[in-house]
């Protein structure tokens, strides 16, 4: 019976997928329905899961269901907890899905829907899901050790330390870019700012309830938290329309940046039960709820894709980010295709909760497929928008000006016809005064979601609600990430400072704590602030820096996986990790080198820095800078960005050399040299 189902089911899925792709590929000249895009993606996921992940599990890794996992051996009810496969899948997905898969695809939509879709689908099957799965496997076989520890074990202490410094650098850039997304979404938006601000007292209230009023009653606190959250969205409209309250919640970009920096410093110093935990619950509810709603909405409304399959901007002249399709598409869409950060989750809490080795395929590989699906939906939501609106929202003011009239004229000249009235009407529909130059993904996605969900539920009159709901959902989990990330960064900084001067490493010592938090906030705050005030910086610079960093981390994780496979004497199958490693190294090194050295100031950091510092030396002020001091700041920031980018490049090249050396040694060895916990010891290990 099972066999028969299998024989009929898989060809059927393959045929459906082929039809969907045909609709995407052949529908030139007319709009394609987004359902085809989503269906094509789902077919790819099912087939890749059924065949490729099974191949990896059975042949490459030889997953052994009879081998006790760390959760079974150490079952302590705290960290090591054998967890039901489906529950852990949800838990793992909630941990890996963040703002990344929502922002990257939206930015990449400037090249049309096809390049982004293809990279997300090919990338996730060949690289992303493979990385998550194999890192999880490697960690489970090593007692749930973290990525840094495993690199130290398998590649040596120097690569281990290098990887840790790299992770900290990427962390700082991520926090800055995420905070920047929030700034871009909330600038001059009293409605949005009020609802986000309201989450602070709501979280404090929930925290106190769970701590003092009804200790430990998390469910009750969450229930009223969600209700209050929804109320705050409606209240936001009242505030935005009120002549006395609205100006209080209308902040400029730099003001918001300072507010976020202050927030990060204070939030990361509060006890975790007071704000971080309750807010994390709220954000997880909204995250899962919104993703499900968006999937249902796309199938129910079946909107047409207004964006063409490819636009002229694949030649590298796009307004949202500069640079050609190769290599920049592949670093703009990181999460959703392959995300290095996942290697930290797959070697974090998840491996300590795996009940049986046979579950790893579903949780590691399958979990990443779900994240990829989120990316496809984000891309869909951006491409459902009228392209004119899309470019009005994402092109910088330096290109399209600051009025609806100038924006409409520039964008229409690109071949995407739009009138000022359409731009203003869209702003009115979502309850905002302007939609121009809100790069960063969140607002674009929110408008797309508002249109899809508005058509499904509530019509035009509800669009403003859905827009602010979507902004709230993204800002909420970004603010949680800023809070938690600052704490993680503080621990890493203290760990490093501890090597220099011992007392600074003591996490219980208040001055050392404050120093660590201050350094961490100062670092990401600097990049955030420069992103807000630098007329040429912002998302255009920071997102690509983040993309390079994140993909480099993926490259490092895959280098570890490759080395482990070779050390296990499975070199016959090493192409499974070597192929994505090679592709990531090629794209990110090309992108990294171009970002630093390209002679076009729109792409190369050094070229832009030189252009501005030379002009400043001659006393000329180049637009959009307004003074010599501003010119010098632009130059300095670009030199700094070049240094950070150069650090990522050097780091990954160094890791590559270490990995090659280890692999060559392992090939010469007669026996497997991977440092797994042997199956016998694993079976005998007494439960704690």
């Amino acid at each position, binding site marked *: 019976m099972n066999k028969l189902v299998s024989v009929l089911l898989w060809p059927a899925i393959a045929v459906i997928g082929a039809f969907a792709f045909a609709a995407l590929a052949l529908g030139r000249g007319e709009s394609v329905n987004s359902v085809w895009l989503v269906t094509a993606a789902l077919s790819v996921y099912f087939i890749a899961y059924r065949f490729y992940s099974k191949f990896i599990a059975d042949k490459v890794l030889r997953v052994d269901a009879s081998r006790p996992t760390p959760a079974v051996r150490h079952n302590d009810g705290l960290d090591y907890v054998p967890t039901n*496969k489906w529950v852990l899948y949800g838990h793992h997905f909630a941990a890996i*899905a963040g703002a990344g898969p929502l922002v990257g695809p939206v930015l990449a939509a400037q090249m049309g829907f096809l390049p982004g879709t293809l990279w997300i689908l090919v990338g996730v099957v060949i690289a992303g899901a493979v990385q998550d799965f194999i890192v999880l496997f490697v960690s489970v076989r090593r007692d749930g050790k973290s990525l840094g520890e495993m690199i130290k074990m398998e590649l040596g202490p120097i690569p281990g330390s290098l990887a840790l410094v790299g992770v900290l650098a990427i962390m700082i850039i991520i926090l800055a870019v995420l905070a920047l997304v929030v700034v871009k979404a909330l600038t001059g938006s009293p409605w949005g700012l009020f609802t986000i601000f309201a989450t602070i007292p709501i979280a404090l209230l929930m925290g106190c309830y769970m701590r003092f009023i009804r*200790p430990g009653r998390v469910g009750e606190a969450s229930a009223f938290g969600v209700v209050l959250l929804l109320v705050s969205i409606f209240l936001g409209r009242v505030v935005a329309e009120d002549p006395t309250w609205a100006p209080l919640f209308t902040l400029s970009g730099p003001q918001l940046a300072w507010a976020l920096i202050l927030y990060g410093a204070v939030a990361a110093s509060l006890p975790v039960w007071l704000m971080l935990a309750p807010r994390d619950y709220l954000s997880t509810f909204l995250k899962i709820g919104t993703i499900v709603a968006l999937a249902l909405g796309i199938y129910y409304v079946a909107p047409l894709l207004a964006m063409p399959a490819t636009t002229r901007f694949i030649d590298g002249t796009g307004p949202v980010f500069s640079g050609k399709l190769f290599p920049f598409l592949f670093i703009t869409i990181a999460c959703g295709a392959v995300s290095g950060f996942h290697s930290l989750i797959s070697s974090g809490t998840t491996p300590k909760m795996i009940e049986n080795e046979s579950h790893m395929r579903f949780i590691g590989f399958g979990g990443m497929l779900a994240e990829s699906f989120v990316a496809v939906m984000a891309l869909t939501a951006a491409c459902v928008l009228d392209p004119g609106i899309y470019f009005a929202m994402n092109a910088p003011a330096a290109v399209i000006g600051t009025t609806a009239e100038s924006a409409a004229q520039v964008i229409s000249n690109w071949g995407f016809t739009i009138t000022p009235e359409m731009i203003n009407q869209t702003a009115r529909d979502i309850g905002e005064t302007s939609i121009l130059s809100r790069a960063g993904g969140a607002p674009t996605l929110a408008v797309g979601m508002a249109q899809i969900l508005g058509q499904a539920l509530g019509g035009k009159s509800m669009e403003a609600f859905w827009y602010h709901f979507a902004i709230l959902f993204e800002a909420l989990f970004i603010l949680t990430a800023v809070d938690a990330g600052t704490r993680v960064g503080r621990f890493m900084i203290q760990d490093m400072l501890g090597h220099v001067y011992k007392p600074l490493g003591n996490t219980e010592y208040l001055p050392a704590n404050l120093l660590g938090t201050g350094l961490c906030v100062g670092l990401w705050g600097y990049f955030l602030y420069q992103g807000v005030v630098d007329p040429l910086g912002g998302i255009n610079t920071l997102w690509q820096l983040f993309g390079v960093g994140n993909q480099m981390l993926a490259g490092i994780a895959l280098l570890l996986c490759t080395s482990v496979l070779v050390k296990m004497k499975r070199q016959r199958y090493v192409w499974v990790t070597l192929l994505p490693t090679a592709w990531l190294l090629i794209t990110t090194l090309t992108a990294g080198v171009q970002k630093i050295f390209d002679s076009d100031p729109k792409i190369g950091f050094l070229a832009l820095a030189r252009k501005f510092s030379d002009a400043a030396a001659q006393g000329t002020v180049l637009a959009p800078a307004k003074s010599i001091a501003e010119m010098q700041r632009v130059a300095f920031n670009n030199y700094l960005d070049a240094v950070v980018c150069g650090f990522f490049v050097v780091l990954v090249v160094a890791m590559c050399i270490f990995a090659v050396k280890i692999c060559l040694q392992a090939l010469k060895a007669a026996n497997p040299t991977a440092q797994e916990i042997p199956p016998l010891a694993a079976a005998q290990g007494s439960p704690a």
Partner: protein
Amino acid sequence: MTAAPRKGDTAAMLHMDHPSAEDAAQGGLRARARILCSACRQVFGMPDYERYLAHAAERHPGTPVLTRGDYFVQAIERKYGTGGARCC
């Protein structure tokens, strides 16, 4: 993708060595709801006091257990004390 958990198995699969786990197998509505809540708490990463009690009863019988409030504080500190792993 993979076969859905069989109905009668849910209690065992969730490791709910709960007094009413047998009710669940027989379809006790309340017990089922409890199992569902427990699963949700685990997905959202919330402290699950009942689960802790079950673990304590199975692994460390006779030793005193934490109150709900104390368990909550400890579990939260454990999960978020170092920032907690999360993605971009």
